[in-house]
C-alpha cells in the first residue's frame, strides 16, 4: 500500500545511475536502459496496461480479475505476510540517512524566470517541492505548476532517447552529423537558434560564445504567451506592490500570471487582515481589475470591469485623458463603460499618487504597455511602485521572423531549445511545413513532442529537477538549478547542447554552469560563494546599476476596432502554454473560475449564449480567416459579451498518455503575428454536445450560512457581523472532551485567498492523492482533499466571485465519526478527525453524514500500478499511506507532518514551536491565507487569527464545532462607486 518498499529499489537505481558520472554521463541511453533494475522499475511504475475502469473488460479478463480481487481481498489476510527484502547501500553517501528527508535549494524556471524552491528528497528521490522563503520570487510559496513539476519529473512518457527522423539513434551519429555542418555555418552562416524566454546567465553566455564562433547566428525567441512580437519592445518593468495603495490591473491577472505573481499575491492580498482598530482598517490597498477573461485577480479585486481585450487600451487611454497624460486628450471613453466609474477610478489613483500602480497584461499589445507606463509616470509611481526590470531576452527576432528566414532559405541549421513551436506556433504560420524545409533541425525537449517528431534530430532534455542550470527571477536575482536526482531517462541540459554546437562534445553539465560563474567571480573564493549559492538557493551579486526606464513618447490614441466578436487566447491557468499538458495533477486541477478539469472549452458570456441559443457543452465552430475549430462552449459569468476566450495548452497530439487528445489546440486559430486577441470571429452553432468535466455544479450560495462577507462600511458599522446570533457553543447533552496536549486547528483568511489552487496541488503532492481522469471527474469522483469553492453573486454578466478553500473541518462533534461501524474514523487526543484507511470497509456513511462533503472515496483502484493515470510509485510521499480501492479518505491536517514535528521536538527535548509545523496547503499559500497551529497556545498565530472578530465556523448552527474556521471577508470598494452589491438583485441563476 505504501511506496516505502520501492525506496531501496529507487536507491539502487539511483546508484546505478550515479555511477555514470563524469565523462560517461554524456553518452547514449541504449546500454543503460538494458539493466534489469531499470527495466523492473520501468515496468512496475509505468506499465502499459490500460486501467480497468476505462477499458472494456473481456470475459477472461473479468474472471481473472475476479480471482485476483478475491485473492487480494480475502486471502492476504489469511496467510502470513509475504517476504520482503532489504537492500542497503554498499557505500552510504555522506549525510544521507535512510528514512530522513534531505532538502535541497533549487530553482524551477517558468517562462524562463526563476522561482526558488526547496526540494525534499528521500534516499535521493525528490518527493515534494516547497517554496524557498529566502528567494525573492517565491517568499516561501509556489504555484500549482511548481508543485506539479514533481510529477513531471517521473512522467514515464518523457523522452528517453536521441532520435533521428523519429527513430532511436545514438549520440555518436548526431555528433558526426553536427560536426560535418559546423565549419560551413562558421563560414557561411545559416545556423539559427530558437528558444523560449531565456534568462539563464550561463546559457546566454554560451550563446554569446556561439555568436563568436558563428558570426551569422540568428537567435529567435518564441514566447506564445507574450502575444505579438513588436519591433519596439515593451518596457521591462516590475512592481513593488507592497508599496501600492491603489492598483489597477489592466487584463494582467497580476496575482496569477507572470514571473512575479507569487510576490504580487503576497503583497496585495497577503496584507489584508481587516481590523477596525488599525488606521487602514487592515485593508492597505484597493484593487481594480479591468479584464477580458474572468480571472483570479478579477475575482479578488474590489472593483471588476469586464471588457473585451481590444477595448482595454481604449480604457487606458480614457483614463490617461482624465489623469492628464500628454497626447491622450483626444481619447474617448470606450463604449459601455460608465464614465462615472472611470472618474472615480481616476480620482482614486490620483489620490494614491506614488502609491498607485497600473499593471498592463502580458497578452496585451506593446501599445498598452507604453500607455500604462505613461500612466504610472503621470501618477508619480515610477521609481516607487514601478521599477525597471532586467531586460527581456535579447533575441534577434520572433517566430514570424524565423518563418520568414526559412522562406528565404536562410536557415540551414535550427536548434530549438526547450520550445515546441510545431504545437504552439500560430496556425497561420504553418510552422511544421516550414520546419520540414530546414535541412538540419535539432530539438531539445523533455518530450518527444510535436516539434521533436517534426525535427530531424530530437534530443531528450533533462527535467529542471535533474539538471545543472541557472535562471534569473523577475527582479534579476540569479539562482542555480541543482539536480536532486540524476537524469532518470538520460537527458541533456541546454548548456550541454549549446556546448556541443560550440564543438565541445564532452562538456560536463555542472562544469558548464560553474564555468560561467567562475568567470563572474574571478578573484573571490569561488567554491565558497558557489556553495553559499547552492545552500541559499540564490546567488548574491552586486546589484546592477539601476537602469532608467525609457519613458514612452508620442503616445498614439488607440482607436476602437469593429464591435464584432473577439477571440482571445489566454494561458491555461494550469497547463500554462501547453508544456504541462501531460501532467495529470494539472490536467485534473479545477481551473479557478470555471472549475473545469481536463476538457477545454470556449468561454462565452451568458448574453452571447442567450443570443446564439447555446447551452453548456454545446459545440460551436469558431471560424477566423478561413480556419475552423470545433469546440464546446462554457458559459462563464463575467465574460465580456463580445469576447470569446480559448485557453491555450490543450489539444496536444504528441506529449503522452495523459495529455494527448485532451481538448483542442487553440493555437490553430491564431493570426500569424501571434497576437493574443483578434477580431473577425464567426461562431457557428452545432447540435453536438460534450459533457464537460467540471467539479462544481452549483454556483450560488443560496442564502446558506457558508460564506460571510461585507464591505468596509458594513464592517465598521458592525465589526461582529460574522458572529452567529445565538450563543456559542450551543448547549449539548454530552459532556465536553478535554484536549490537554496540543489542540490543532486551522484558520482560513478569506480576505487573502485568491483562489489560485496552489493548495490543491500541494495537498495532492503531499498526500499521494490519485489522479482519476476526465470520465471519473464527470461522474463526481474527483479526489482532491482540499477544494476551492467558487461562488458567484449578483448579475451573471458582472458577478462578484468568491473563493472558499474547503479542507476537512475536523469537527469536534464530528457527524462522520459516530456513524462509522468499524471505528475507521474517530477523534484523536489532539482533536484531529483521524481516518484509518486500513480499517475502512467502505460503507461511505461518513461521507453521507458530512455536511461539508470533504470526504473522498476510492471508487476504483486508482492507485493500482496498472492504472493508466497512476502516480508513479517513486513520486509518492513515503510518509503517507497509499490508499487502495474501496477506502474513504480525506484531509488529515497533514498528520504525518504533525507526527514528525512532534517527534523531532521530543527527540530534541524541547517543546514544539509555533510555526515550525506547517500543513502542505499552508506552506504553499502565496498569500498566507491559511494559519495552522495549536489552539491551546494562546500566542500561536492560529489562536490569534481565531480571536479575530471575523472568525466564524461554516454551518456553525449544526453544532459540529469545526476546528477549521474562516475569517469573513471584508471588501474595500471605492465609496464613490456604488454600482454593485444590492443583495435584492442577487438572483439570476448562473447558467446551468
Amino acid at each position, binding site marked *: 500500500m505504501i511506496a516505502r518498499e520501492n525506496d531501496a529499489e529507487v536507491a539502487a537505481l539511483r546508484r546505478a545511475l550515479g555511477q555514470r558520472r563524469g565523462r560517461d554521463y554524456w553518452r547514449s541511453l541504449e546500454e543503460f536502459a538494458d539493466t534489469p533494475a531499470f527495466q523492473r522499475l520501468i515496468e512496475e511504475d509505468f506499465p502499459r496496461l490500460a486501467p480497468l475502469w476505462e477499458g472494456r473488460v473481456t470475459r477472461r479478463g473479468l474472471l481473472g480479475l475476479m480471482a485476483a480481487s478475491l485473492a487480494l481481498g480475502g486471502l492476504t489476510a489469511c496467510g502470513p505476510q509475504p517476504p520482503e527484502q532489504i537492500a542497503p547501500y554498499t557505500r552510504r553517501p555522506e549525510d544521507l540517512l535512510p528514512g530522513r528527508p534531505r532538502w535541497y535549494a533549487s530553482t524551477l524556471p517558468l517562462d524562463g524566470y526563476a522561482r526558488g524552491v526547496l526540494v525534499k528528497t528521500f534516499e535521493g528521490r525528490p518527493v515534494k517541492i516547497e517554496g524557498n522563503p529566502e528567494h525573492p520570487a517565491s517568499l516561501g510559496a509556489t504555484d500549482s505548476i511548481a508543485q506539479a513539476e514533481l510529477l513531471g519529473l517521473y512522467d514515464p512518457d518523457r523522452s528517453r532517447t536521441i532520435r533521428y527522423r523519429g527513430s532511436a539513434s545514438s549520440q555518436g551519429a548526431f555528433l558526426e552529423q553536427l560536426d560535418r555542418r559546423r565549419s560551413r555555418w562558421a563560414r557561411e552562416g545559416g545556423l539559427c537558434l530558437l528558444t523560449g524566454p531565456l534568462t539563464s546567465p550561463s546559457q546566454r553566455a554560451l550563446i554569446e560564445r556561439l555568436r563568436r564562433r558563428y558570426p551569422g547566428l540568428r537567435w529567435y525567441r518564441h514566447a506564445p504567451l507574450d502575444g505579438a512580437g513588436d519591433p519596439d519592445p515593451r518596457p521591462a518593468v516590475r512592481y513593488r506592490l507592497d508599496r501600492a495603495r491603489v492598483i489597477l490591473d489592466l487584463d494582467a491577472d497580476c496575482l496569477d500570471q507572470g514571473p512575479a505573481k507569487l510576490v504580487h499575491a503576497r503583497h496585495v492580498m497577503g496584507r489584508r487582515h481587516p481590523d477596525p482598530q488599525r488606521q487602514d482598517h487592515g485593508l492597505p490597498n484597493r484593487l481594480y481589475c479591468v479584464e477580458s477573461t474572468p480571472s483570479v485577480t478579477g475575482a479578488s479585486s474590489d472593483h471588476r470591469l469586464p471588457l473585451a481585450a481590444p477595448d482595454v487600451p481604449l480604457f487606458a487611454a480614457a483614463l490617461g485623458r482624465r489623469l492628464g497624460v500628454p497626447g491622450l486628450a483626444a481619447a474617448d471613453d470606450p463604449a459601455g463603460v460608465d464614465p462615472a466609474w472611470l472618474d472615480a477610478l481616476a480620482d482614486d489613483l490620483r489620490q494614491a499618487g506614488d502609491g498607485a500602480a497600473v499593471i498592463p497584461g502580458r497578452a496585451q499589445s506593446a501599445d498598452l504597455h507604453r500607455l500604462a507606463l505613461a500612466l504610472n509616470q503621470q501618477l508619480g509611481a515610477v521609481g516607487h511602485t514601478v521599477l525597471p526590470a532586467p531586460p527581456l531576452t535579447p533575441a534577434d527576432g520572433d517566430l514570424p521572423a524565423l518563418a520568414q528566414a526559412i522562406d528565404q532559405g536562410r536557415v540551414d541549421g535550427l536548434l530549438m531549445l526547450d520550445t515546441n513551436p510545431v504545437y504552439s506556433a500560430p496556425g497561420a504560420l504553418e510552422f511544421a511545413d516550414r520546419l520540414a524545409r530546414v535541412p538540419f533541425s535539432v530539438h531539445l525537449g523533455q518530450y518527444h513532442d510535436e516539434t521533436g517528431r517534426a525535427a530531424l534530430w530530437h534530443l531528450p532534455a533533462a527535467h529542471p529537477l535533474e539538471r545543472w542550470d541557472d535562471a534569473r527571477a523577475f527582479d534579476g536575482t540569479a539562482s542555480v538549478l541543482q539536480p536532486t536526482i540524476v537524469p532518470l531517462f538520460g537527458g541533456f541540459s541546454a548548456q550541454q547542447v549549446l556546448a556541443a554546437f560550440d564543438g565541445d562534445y564532452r562538456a560536463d553539465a555542472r562544469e558548464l554552469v560553474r564555468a560561467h560563474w567562475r568567470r563572474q567571480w574571478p578573484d573571490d573564493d569561488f567554491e565558497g560563494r558557489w556553495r553559499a549559492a547552492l545552500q541559499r538557493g540564490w546567488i548574491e551579486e552586486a546589484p546592477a546599476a539601476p537602469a532608467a526606464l525609457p519613458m514612452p513618447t508620442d503616445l498614439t490614441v488607440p482607436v476602437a476596432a469593429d464591435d464584432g466578436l473577439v477571440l482571445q487566447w489566454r494561458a491555461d491557468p494550469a497547463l500554462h502554454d501547453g508544456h504541462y499538458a501531460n501532467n495529470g495533477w494539472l490536467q485534473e486541477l479545477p481551473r479557478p473560475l470555471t472549475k473545469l478539469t481536463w476538457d477545454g472549452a470556449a468561454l462565452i458570456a451568458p448574453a452571447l449564449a442567450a443570443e446564439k441559443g447555446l447551452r453548456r457543452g454545446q459545440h460551436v465552430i469558431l471560424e477566423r480567416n478561413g480556419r475552423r475549430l470545433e469546440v464546446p462552449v462554457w458559459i462563464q459569468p463575467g465574460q465580456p459579451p463580445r469576447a470569446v476566450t480559448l485557453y491555450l495548452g490543450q489539444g496536444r497530439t504528441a506529449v503522452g498518455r495523459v495529455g494527448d487528445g485532451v481538448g483542442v489546440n487553440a493555437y490553430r486559430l491564431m493570426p500569424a503575428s501571434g497576437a493574443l486577441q483578434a477580431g473577425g470571429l464567426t461562431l457557428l452553432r452545432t447540435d453536438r454536445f460534450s459533457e464537460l468535466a467540471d467539479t462544481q455544479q452549483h454556483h450560488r450560495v443560496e442564502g446558506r450560512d457558508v460564506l460571510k462577507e461585507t464591505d468596509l462600511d458594513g464592517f465598521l458599522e458592525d465589526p461582529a457581523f460574522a458572529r452567529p446570533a445565538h450563543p456559542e457553543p450551543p448547549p449539548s447533552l*454530552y459532556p465536553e472532551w478535554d484536549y490537554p496536549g496540543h489542540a490543532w486547528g486551522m484558520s482560513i483568511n478569506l480576505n487573502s485567498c485568491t483562489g489560485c489552487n496552489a493548495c490543491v496541488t500541494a495537498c495532492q503532492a503531499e498526500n499521494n492523492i490519485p489522479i482519476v481522469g476526465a470520465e471519473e471527474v464527470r461522474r463526481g469522483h474527483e479526489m482532491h482533499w482540499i477544494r476551492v469553492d467558487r461562488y458567484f453573486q449578483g448579475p451573471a454578466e458582472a458577478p462578484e466571485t468568491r473563493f472558499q478553500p474547503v479542507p476537512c473541518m475536523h469537527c469536534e462533534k*464530528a*457527524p462522520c*465519526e*459516530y456513524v462509522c461501524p468499524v471505528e475507521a474514523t474517530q477523534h484523536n487526543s489532539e482533536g484531529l478527525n483521524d481516518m484509518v484507511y486500513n480499517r475502512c470497509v467502505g460503507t461511505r456513511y461518513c461521507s453521507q453524514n458530512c455536511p461539508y462533503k470533504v470526504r473522498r472515496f476510492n471508487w476504483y483502484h486508482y492507485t493500482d500500478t496498472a492504472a493508466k493515470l497512476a502516480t508513479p510509485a517513486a513520486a509518492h510521499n513515503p510518509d503517507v499511506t497509499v490508499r487502495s480501492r474501496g477506502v474513504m479518505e480525506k484531509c488529515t491536517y497533514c498528520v504525518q507532518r504533525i507526527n514528525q514535528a512532534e517527534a523531532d521536538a521530543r527527540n530534541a527535548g524541547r517543546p514544539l514551536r509555533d510555526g515550525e509545523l506547517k500543513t502542505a496547503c499552508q506552506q504553499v499559500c502565496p498569500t498566507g491565507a491559511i494559519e495552522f497551529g495549536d489552539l491551546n497556545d494562546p500566542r500561536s498565530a492560529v489562536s490569534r487569527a481565531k480571536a479575530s472578530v471575523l472568525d466564524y465556523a461554516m454551518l456553525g448552527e449544526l453544532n459540529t464545532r469545526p476546528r477549521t474556521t474562516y475569517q469573513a471577508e471584508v471588501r474595500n470598494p471605492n465609496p464613490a462607486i456604488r454600482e454593485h452589491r444590492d443583495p435584492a438583485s442577487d438572483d439570476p441563476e448562473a447558467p446551468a
Partner: protein
Amino acid sequence: MAERLHGLLARFPDADRLIAASRDLRECGLSRLDAYTPHPVAGLPEALGVRDRRVPLTALICAVLAGAGTLALQIYASLDYPFNVGGKPVVSWPAYMIVTFAMSMVGATLGALFSMLLLNGFPRPYHPLFNVAEFDAASRDGFFLCVEAADPRFDAERLNQRLKQHGAERVWEVPA
C-alpha cells in the same frame, strides 16, 4: 406374545371422540398416553394432562441472557479501547439498546425453537409408531390415541375393548 409391544394404537373418526377417550383413559389412571392429530386440537392436551410451560420460559430466559450479554459486550468493548467518537461519551448506552434488543429477540427465537425441538425429543427419525403403516393418516386426517405398553396399568385386552367402546375405528398393536 413373542414380539415386544410398544403399545396400542387406536384411530378415532373425529377429534371429540379422541378427546373423550383420552380423558377417560387418563381418569382410569393410565399415564403413558399420547394422542396424534393432523392439527392442534383444543382441549386435547388438557385431556391428556399435558401441562408444560417450559418453552416460553426458556425463550424468556434466553432473551434476557442474550440481551444482557450483548449490552455487557458493548460496554466492555467501549471500555476496552475507549475512543472519542464524534465527541460522544465513551459509553453511549442509549445507542447500545438497539443491538441489545435485536439480540434478545434472537435469544427468544432460538430459545423457543430449540426448546421445542429438544423437549419433543427431536430429531428422532425412527419411532415404533411408524411401524403401523396406517399411522401416516395422522398427518392427513386421522385422529389416533396410543397407550404405551410401558404403562404400569397397561393391559392390552382391556384397553382394546375400552378404546373400541369410545368409538375407535381400529386398534393396532404397535411392535416395539
